[in-house]
């Protein structure tokens, strides 16, 4: 029982980070209807930025978010402005391939700059944990979950209460109608992609004390992000939040009961089942 509770808790904690990744992807999909295959690579860039700041300037990974986030927002905005915007009306497969191509460029440029060696960012708290009623919880995971919660709440506030946030949601609901209402749709797209990439990079920064850092780390997170967004219903921010936590828990518990090698299969089978029986996602937003 304690093993179950233990894996449930660590699943929820890592799920918080997954939620950030998923929310980023779902915002991009919602506003642009583009599936961003470079999402994991944006996360990878966040990891390397954190690693670079830590080794060169000794900035704590959790603190460095304040630098990484705005930088990656600008980078995402740049990608949207100069690449993605040009294919918004193109065939979906061309959009997908463009983001795949951008992802390949990112991961291979990083490989040229940092080589493909695995890097480890070890802080003094990397392997420390807190114990609670016989259940031990990894400290970096706990801290990252707290930060994710704060960021997610801030994001909800931004999307629900501010004018820009509402304009983004309006664009996601109906691009044409939003344009007719006088919303600058292009600008919203740029902000959305910037937000998405900032969130992915933040997730990367948060997991960098506990994960191996290498140029190809992105693709597995891209896949996870897809699973999370489909699970929650593409374009739904609340869905992505819940989907992230669900996937974290499924992975963690699947890893305990099927062996860690099979935990990804558990996730993908779950994914296919949802695609087949509830293609609109667990929360059932509209499919189009």
């Amino acid at each position, binding site marked *: 029982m304690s093993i179950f509770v233990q894996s449930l808790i660590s699943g929820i904690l890592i799920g918080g980070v997954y939620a950030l990744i998923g929310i980023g992807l779902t915002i991009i999909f919602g506003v642009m209807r583009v599936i961003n295959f470079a999402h994991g690579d944006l996360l990878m860039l966040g990891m390397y930025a954190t690693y670079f700041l830590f080794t060169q300037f000794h900035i704590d990974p959790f603190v460095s978010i304040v630098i990484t986030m705005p930088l990656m927002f600008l980078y995402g905005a740049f990608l949207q402005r100069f690449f993605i915007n040009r294919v918004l009306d193109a065939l979906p497969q061309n959009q997908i391939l463009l983001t*795949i191509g951008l992802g390949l*460029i990112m991961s291979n440029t990083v*490989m*040229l700059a940092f080589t493909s060696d695995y890097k480890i960012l070890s802080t003094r708290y990397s392997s420390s944990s807190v114990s609670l009623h016989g259940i031990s919880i990894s400290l970096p995971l706990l801290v990252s979950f707290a930060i994710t919660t704060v960021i997610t709440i801030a994001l909800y506030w931004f999307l629900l209460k501010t004018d820009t946030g509402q304009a983004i949601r309006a664009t996601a609901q109906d691009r044409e109608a939003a344009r007719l209402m006088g919303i600058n749709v292009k600008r919203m797209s740029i902000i959305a992609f910037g937000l998405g990439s900032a969130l992915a990079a933040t997730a990367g920064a948060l997991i960098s004390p506990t994960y191996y850092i290498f140029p190809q780390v992105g693709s597995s997170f891209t896949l996870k992000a897809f699973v999370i967004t489909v699970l929650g219903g593409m374009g739904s921010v609340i869905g992505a939040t819940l989907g992230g936590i669900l996937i974290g828990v499924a992975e963690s518990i699947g890893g305990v009961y099927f062996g860690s090698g099979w935990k990804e299969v558990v996730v993908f089978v779950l994914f296919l089942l949802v695609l087949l029986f509830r293609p609109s996602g667990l929360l059932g937003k509209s499919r189009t």
Partner: protein
Amino acid sequence: MPSPSFIRRKWITSAGGKRVIPLLLLASGVALLALIPLSVQSTYALHIMILTFVSIIMGSAWNILGGYTGQYSVGHAAYFGVGAYTTMILLQFRHIAPWYGMWAGVGATIVTALIIGSICFRLRGPYFVLASIAVAEIFRVTALNLKDLTNGAEGILVTELPPLKFGDTVITDFTTKVPFFYTGLITALFVIFVTRGVQHSKLGYYFQAIREDQDAAHSLGINPALYKNIALVISAVFTSVAGSLYAVYVGFIDPGTVFSLDVSVQIVTIAIIGGIGTILGPVIGAIVLVTLSEALRSNALTNALIHAGLVNADSRVGVFLKENLSHAHILIYGILVVIVILFMPQGLLGFARRIVTRKRKG
């Protein structure tokens, strides 16, 4: 499959009319290719050509499903890997020669394709793409974990191939690259021929109708599920053959080299860069991609830059390029994909055609 009567008619008109010239050109081109191993001594040149043939098979196979039927599978690594693994497992653990094992691979792939098809073809657009990726990933992780069958992450290494015999005469013992060259050439020509058949046959028109508008095609009496599955099986069979050929030629496979998302992306890239839904698109894509990535891998590009006097070999830049550029041959895939999508969405072939027609008009 292409309807035979249609092909016959085509060949007859070819013999009588102005189609003779392209046909002759084609025949002499093929003859020239077939003579290459006799005159070219460089094993490296043969190696690149074999890789190109495998890429042509992969790209053309994807093209039948993705280009003609409009189902953008980004999970073709599943079929590539099933072919490669079946052949290699039979060869290594059961000592069954690859030219028989390959057919077992094809059989396994057909079963796999029908199962995957029955799941994924219920979905459309981005959902289909995501499902196809998920299925291929399930295969990768399974191959990684079924250690008794697949050797897991260690992969399967085959160093010796049994000689191919006809009666008592040894046809080849596979010590050179030449038999692989001919196998690749013949299979590549065959898949191009099949693509041609698909493009001009009733079956191909059904495929293209589904690509253009699935619902309209359905309302005209075309069964989308049936024809999508037919396209998938044709496509998967050739992908599987490419996988077997690659595995036996290289002599080593592991889940990362045959089942990974990179393989699926590479397959799609070949077709898209050349131009999807065309016969020659994947051929051009394969030639361009293999040549460019090999040029990077072998440091030919760096050497050329140094020779041209653009980069000093001893300077920091020169040393850096020499040491690192060969590892980043995938980078060229990325850059090419981005350029092609942004500036030539119809692929290299479509781009060339547009330039030609523009010149004719002007």
